[in-house]
């Protein structure tokens, strides 16, 4: 039997005490971002990153593919917008309303569909996304203003009597929330719950045999993901000052899928990298042609064929395979 101190030493070697360096480093880069690229683009990157962090928890870490994530984004956006417009609540309450609404929707969809096999869930989620889109388009158009989107939501954006009307002020407000969400995500991934999600994606059957209730875990992951989606949607309402009907459109769901896969599903920075690259591509291509979907779709197809791990996933694979060779050599030396 080895000594207890031996085990302690072994533990630090097998899993060093985790430090959130990656979160703080990213935060620093994001603080400087609006000085490098335009403020609106920077803000968009933050909002989509929050959306992507939540989507990545579901797709990248739990292995559940939702093709209707626009539902959470759009519902968050509309709920926040409606609360601010009709109830005149302050923006923090508005955001909270958006988040809660999206989480409730995730509970509803999860209860109905998360039991179904993966392909069915992908189809059902897309269908629910479309259902919300068409509901906002015509039956509820008295409230949602249908095709025009929800406009004239607020005169000014104020946070406790501090005006956020200047784009840069709003950017740093969104940044603060983004950093909180990055840290939250990082904590989740270091926790038993986060490790469990990854185990799920790796081998659901084995996880069941370990005593995990797979349905329940997927359900929690979906609701958590709904929280991020609702938050991103609500922030988008503050940023745009209105809610476009397209926030519920299927292409919005598709965009977050493409961003996350492009950046690297199941990697911590994947969503941020994917969002940045995607928005850069979209903006650049739009300068030349309105048909950016063709190019983005084609690039996405190529990525799937050549780098299915996405940008960060491919880099991580390279790094891990090198590390494994080293470790194996080390183990061989011992024997």
């Amino acid at each position, binding site marked *: 039997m080895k000594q207890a101190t031996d085990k302690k030493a072994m533990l630090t070697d097998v899993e060093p005490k985790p430090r959130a360096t990656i979160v703080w480093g990213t935060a620093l880069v994001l603080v400087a971002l609006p000085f490098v690229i335009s403020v609106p683009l920077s803000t968009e990157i933050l909002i989509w990153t929050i959306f992507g962090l939540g989507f990545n928890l579901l797709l990248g870490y739990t292995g559940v593919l939702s093709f209707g994530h626009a539902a959470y984004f759009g519902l968050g956006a509309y709920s926040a917008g409606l609360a601010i417009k009709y109830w005149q609540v302050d923006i923090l309450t508005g955001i909270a309303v958006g988040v809660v609404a999206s989480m409730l929707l995730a509970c509803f969809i999860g209860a109905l569909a998360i039991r179904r096999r993966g392909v069915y869930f992908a189809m059902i989620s897309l*269908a629910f996304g479309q259902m919300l889109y068409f509901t906002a388009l*015509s039956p509820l158009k008295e409230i949602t203003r249908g095709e025009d989107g929800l406009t004239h939501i607020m005169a000014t954006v104020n946070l406790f009597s501090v005006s956020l009307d200047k784009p840069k002020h709003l950017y740093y407000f969104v940044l603060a929330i983004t950093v909180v969400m990055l840290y939250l995500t990082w904590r989740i991934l270091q926790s038993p719950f986060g490790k469990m999600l990854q185990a799920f994606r790796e081998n659901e059957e084995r996880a069941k045999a370990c005593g995990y209730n797979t349905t329940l875990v997927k359900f929690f992951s979906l609701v958590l993901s709904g929280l991020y989606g609702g938050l991103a949607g609500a922030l988008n309402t503050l940023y745009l000052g209105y809610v476009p009907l397209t926030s519920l459109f299927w292409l919005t769901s598709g965009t977050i899928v493409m961003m996350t896969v492009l950046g690297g599903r199941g990697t911590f920075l994947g969503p941020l990298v994917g969002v940045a690259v995607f928005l850069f591509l979209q903006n650049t291509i739009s300068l030349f042609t309105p048909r950016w979907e063709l190019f983005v779709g084609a690039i*996405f197809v190529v990525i799937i064929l050549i780098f299915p791990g996405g940008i960060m996933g491919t880099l991580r694979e390279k790094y891990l395979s090198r590390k494994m060779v080293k470790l194996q050599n080390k183990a061989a030396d011992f024997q």
Partner: protein
Amino acid sequence: MISDIPLNVILMQLFFGLALGSIFVIMASGLSIIYGLLDVVNFAHGAFAMLGAYVVFCAVSLSGNFAVGIVSAIVIVALIGALVEVVLLKPLYGKDPLLPLLLTFGLAVAIPDVIKIAFGLIGKAVAYPAAFSGATKVGPLILSNYRMFIIVFTLAVLISLWIFLKKSDLGMIIRAATQDSLMVQVLGINTSRIWTIGFALGVGLAALAGAIAVPMMSATPDMGVEMTMGAFVVTVVGGLGSLGGAIVGGLLIGVIVAFTALVAGEYSNVAMYFCMAVILLIRPRGLFGESGRE
């Protein structure tokens, strides 16, 4: 409500619903065949249907013959499908099962833009074929000839599909490969080619659905999404991999959409999703359970 509506209007709407449902049935059968064989849910299914619609538009403009349009839609789109399967999907088999699904989704995003560049954003209308224009009076009902044609034609397509799968050698191999592709491989049959044929057949059916829908709704670049959605809802309700499920689910959804359009017009786009939600509430695994492979 519905009791105030005269019987003949209800029957008319039922007729409309069956015609609409027929298109869903053909879409969903194609989706099922592809899933059964390749384990891939084809998210670009509607995009292929849209391509079929545009082929009909071109062929009818050139030849003036609707039958030529339908045949060329099936053949051309099936060939495109075969190409897509060989070049894009084949490299992904045996890897992460999400990848082919994501890939077809990428196609669903990209393909409509190709059409927008080639034909512009405005829809292209195709006239009803001369033989089926106008309407026929049946008792108190006035039924559009073209919709009658769709219902009869769909029936014919389904019967031939059924005969093909049950009786022909190729059909039997496809059914066997749907059950167990390894077994078919052991028998010395080239499953790789069967997959290509299966995918081509599936998207060919999608093209057929798009083709026969065109005179009623005209071809637009973005029509694919709604057609995909129709096929998905039918599949969720009826179950993947069963033709019976596709038929019952398709007709049910078609009729429900038609009746909603009658009593609450603004809900007609939402009706099929509500219907899906309700069925999921009552029967979480769909009307016929989940068939096909785990």
